[in-house]
């Protein structure tokens, strides 16, 4: 089990990663109706899931997926860079200290209060990861109706451009500024929880130890 404090790493079980992709299919394709392909009819995996993609994952003792979030540096391919540059005044972010958050996925099989707790742990872990790696901003693309959720996490958030209509509805690009007030803002919003989660890269493409 990877902890953020001492940085001891170990393999996140393949079973947990597989369960993550299964829950992503359940949430994004089945529940939210996103127009995405499902690998073998079971897994939601896209071109941004690769050996360099970082995931923060919460799993239980049986390696069932509870929640996860995907992080990608914007100086490499991202969802926002690849598909949603038009939502950003001045073009999509593209630098090593701005990372994209995507696929925040909470298992539909756990109760609402536990989902909220897992969400808080994942958001907190993302911010702590950013702090440890001199990441100054997050960015994300989100549906217009989800923007209130992102704002409710307490962090400093601003749109990168005016939201626009997409075949799937109104979408917008947001940027989140990370600084030494972020933890306090998120705590005030009831979203700060330093209970550790696991950090993983999907090594099914190339085997090796996690950093």
């Amino acid at each position, binding site marked *: 089990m990877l902890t953020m404090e001492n940085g001891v790493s170990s393999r996140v079980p393949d079973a947990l990663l597989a369960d993550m992709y299964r829950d992503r299919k359940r949430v994004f394709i089945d529940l939210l109706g996103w127009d995405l392909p499902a690998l073998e009819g079971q897994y939601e995996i896209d071109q941004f899931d690769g050996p360099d993609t970082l995931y923060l994952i919460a799993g239980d003792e049986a390696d069932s997926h509870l929640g996860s979030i995907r992080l990608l540096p914007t100086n490499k391919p991202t969802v926002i860079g690849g598909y949603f540059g038009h939502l950003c*005044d001045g073009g999509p972010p593209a630098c090593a200290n701005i990372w994209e958050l995507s696929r925040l996925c909470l298992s*539909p099989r756990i*109760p*609402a*209060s536990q*989902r*909220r707790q897992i969400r808080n742990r994942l958001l907190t872990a993302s911010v702590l990861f950013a702090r440890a790696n001199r990441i100054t901003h997050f960015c994300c693309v989100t*549906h*217009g*109706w989800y*923007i*209130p*959720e992102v*704002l*409710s996490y307490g962090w*400093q958030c*601003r*749109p990168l*451009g*005016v*939201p*626009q*209509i997409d075949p799937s*509805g*109104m979408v*917008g690009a947001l940027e989140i500024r990370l600084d030494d007030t972020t933890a306090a803002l998120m705590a*005030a*919003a*009831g979203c700060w929880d330093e209970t550790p989660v696991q950090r993983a890269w999907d090594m099914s493409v190339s085997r090796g130890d996690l950093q």
Partner: protein
Amino acid sequence: MQMSPRMLAFMEGCAAINDEAALRAILQEMTRELGFKQYALLHHVDLARPPAHSINVMNYEEAWLERIVRNRYFHDDPILAASNRRLTGFGWREVPDIIRLSRRQRKILQEARLHGLLDGFTVPVQVAGEYRGTCSFGSDQPVDLTHHVAGYAQLVAVFCFEAARRIAQQQEGTHAPIPQLTQRQLDCLVIAGSGKTNWEISRILGVSEDTVRKHIMDAMRRYDVSKRTLLIVRALFDGYLSYRELLRRQ
């Protein structure tokens, strides 16, 4: 379409809004900036007896606000009803395509026109586990709803709503902690929330009816409520239950 300097300034300034007066001032200004005259930012609650943490910031005419509350128009206001069917903002002229208007609802719309609300744009706002809400912009003139206005209105609405949420949370003083429920209390509550009686719950869980009654009464005591239905509403609000769980069980 680049964001205007005014919008950029508004976005920056939102974090500094810390009281209702400041929120009203910014809403007033951005309402005009968007080309409207009136605004209503509110949680969809009983406006006659709004709960403690609910939001309610409107500059509608006093006489109209009084009528809304006195006649309980908020119960089936057509704009609020339509907002339940939409994820993002919509123009008021779309409402007859979104819901089938009852006679009372047509009457409400007609009366609203007498108070300067001929046309408008409403943005639904939902944060998980909280009351549904909307931010509406109204005008006494027909509004030209370009993509530009829709996108800007969405941003103004959600940023102002977040500022309002923050103010409402601060006003609470210290957060009342969410009452802790045991797993067994929760097990009973989830089934109760789908409409089952104590006897039915006892059969499902394989315990005595007395045990079920005790669990539910204990939970009610922790929430300091005297009615089972109130307990379920509060548990939904606090995230113990989700609509999906309750509906799945029916």
